[in-house]
């Protein structure tokens, strides 16, 4: 496969029946700065783990906020908690806190 330095997400559809705002609310309560996310994808572009795998941090946090948790826990396990995403985020989202809380939330299920 050619390496272009970026990946294109496969087309996805949102199933409104599965959507549950509760998750998002809980996430916002634990990490208030997540409210500031504009979905720019800066975090994904710089991600250390994303250089090795198809782990996509922006997709992961967006998915959890929409309550789409399938396969998410394993995805998040590949994060090395290096903090690059947090330094790059233009909105100052506390991404490492977010990742840990997401993993804890998924671990509780």
């Amino acid at each position, binding site marked *: 496969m050619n390496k272009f330095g970026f990946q294109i997400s496969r087309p996805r559809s949102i199933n409104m029946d599965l959507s549950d705002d509760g998750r998002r609310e809980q996430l916002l309560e634990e990490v208030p700065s997540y409210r500031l996310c504009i979905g720019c994808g800066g975090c994904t572009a710089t991600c250390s783990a994303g250089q*090795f795998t198809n782990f996509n941090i922006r997709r992961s946090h967006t998915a959890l906020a929409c309550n789409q948790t399938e396969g998410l826990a394993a995805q998040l396990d590949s994060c090395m908690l290096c*903090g690059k995403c947090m330094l790059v985020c233009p909105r100052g989202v506390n991404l490492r806190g977010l990742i840990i809380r997401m993993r804890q939330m998924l671990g509780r299920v």
Partner: protein
Amino acid sequence: MFSFFVIPFCLGVVLLLGISVWKYIRWIRGFDKRQQVIIRRNIWSWRFLPAIWEAFREGLLHWRITKHHLLLGYMHRSLAFGWFLLIVVGAVQAILACPGGHPFYVAIFFNFFEPRSERIVHFAQAPFYANLMDALLIYVLSGLCLAAFKRVWSRPLGMRQTTHHNLIDRIAKLSLWCIFPLRLLAEGATAAIYGNGGFLVTGVGALMAAMGLDNEIFEYHLWVLYSLALGTFFTLMPFTRYMHIFTEIFLIYFRQLGLRETVRKDGYTLFELSACSRCGICIDGCPIHDPLGIHDTQGVYMLQNIRNKDVWKQAERIADNCLVCGRCSTECPVQIDLEGIRRQVRAKGKEAIDKSQSYGYLKSVHPFNAMGRIGYFGGCMSHLTPSITESMERIFRAAGQDYWYMDKERTICCGRPLLQQGFVRQAEELRRRNSELIAQSGVTMLVTSCPICYQSFTKEYHLAIPVMHHSEYIAQLLKEGRLQVTPSEQRIAYHDPCELGRGCGIYEAPRTVLQAVGELQHTRQEREQSLCCGINLGDTVISGTQQAQVRDRAYENLVEGQPDTIATACPMCKKALARGGDTPVRDIAELVAEKMK
């Protein structure tokens, strides 16, 4: 030689001894298996000698506190050493005065029994001892006055904030504070009636008589109160912060034997928890205490929360909210491993999600043969500051050094950010992979640009090759003459990164390098006292805005002397400080690369 009033004191002593011995035995049995092996291996060695000296220096003279602040040191010393001397001199006095032997409490209540018992004889130096005891009592009382004064106004004792104590601590303190004034009054009353005692108590007795107090009536009551205060204090001691008086001695000895915190809370942790005197020295320096108003995470409060088992859940949350900047553990006079304990608490909350097989994908990184070269590990953060890594590459080339840039393309994290958050197994997995890659490459030395990686490689990895931070490496190149730079007039203020300075004790190397390229300025808070840049990876609770507030403090401190450039030796500090204002922020590698001949 007996009177009923000694009963509370004796009871207190028995309870104190019983409970502490029971506690200590339980804690020692709770030691980790490996710790027990270390103890058994080292117990019959000379190590108790330095331990005795350190226990004397720290437990009684409070040397480290004195270095922190002179008057505060005096306060602690006068209470500890003064009381200790009162007991020792009192015991000597009793031995000399009672050739026929005496019950142990006579040493404590000597002035009461002296005129009443015919078994106490008058010996030649008796007046000298009486006066000496009075002088010591003044010494202790002066400390007590300072301690009371500190509660009202702590600034003159070098502390902006004092610890908030819980109820039982406050009761114990009250009883402690009552002991010495009561002793003074009781001995004064006896002196007024029987004319014994030294210059101080005689004076106090005369004063009491002059004020019209009937010493005959009060004397016995005062001795009862004195004994009660002692008894209360001793009984409460094992359950309060005052247990630190004994525990610190044990802790110093264990540390000399080679024991350290392990990944899990064990008996050794219990000793550390109890050795904290709740002096509160760890509060003032904390960069998130004042600017962010976070008042529950500093060493003293974290330990308090852990001791208070029922708020363990809360302790986890509290433990997460800390920059791990190391300021508190550097200042702690008991040198408690606050970071190690914090990590244990954090790990407890991560146990369920800390998997050991998370990074299978790293198998795709193939080993590289770099036999005989030196390895350069930029680190994740340096990838965000390419000017640092480029400068380092230029420096390597200028010095004619053959190097291999290990993580040029893709970087594997060193594992410390995970470890700091309590992901012990995951961090180990990353360390294992990096170690394999380094060993297989055959490099002879490792140079890194990131202080976090540096601390990780030197403390957590067990590499067979030397590791250097680039500041050390550049300093060495300059010293050996392999690199020449043109000095300049620019005024430079240096920011000590937490992980490099307090974390690894590297303060000199970056300064030597900077002196070669410009004029290094002093800042008000530098070296051990340097302020965290705010982005430090230790904290996963505070937001970006809060990080900026922490950074502002550090930035203000640096620009006070209006430098032309702010220099630092950490990619993350550089990123953080650069957002703080208009003064350019450069890494020392950049400054050197610019000025290379």
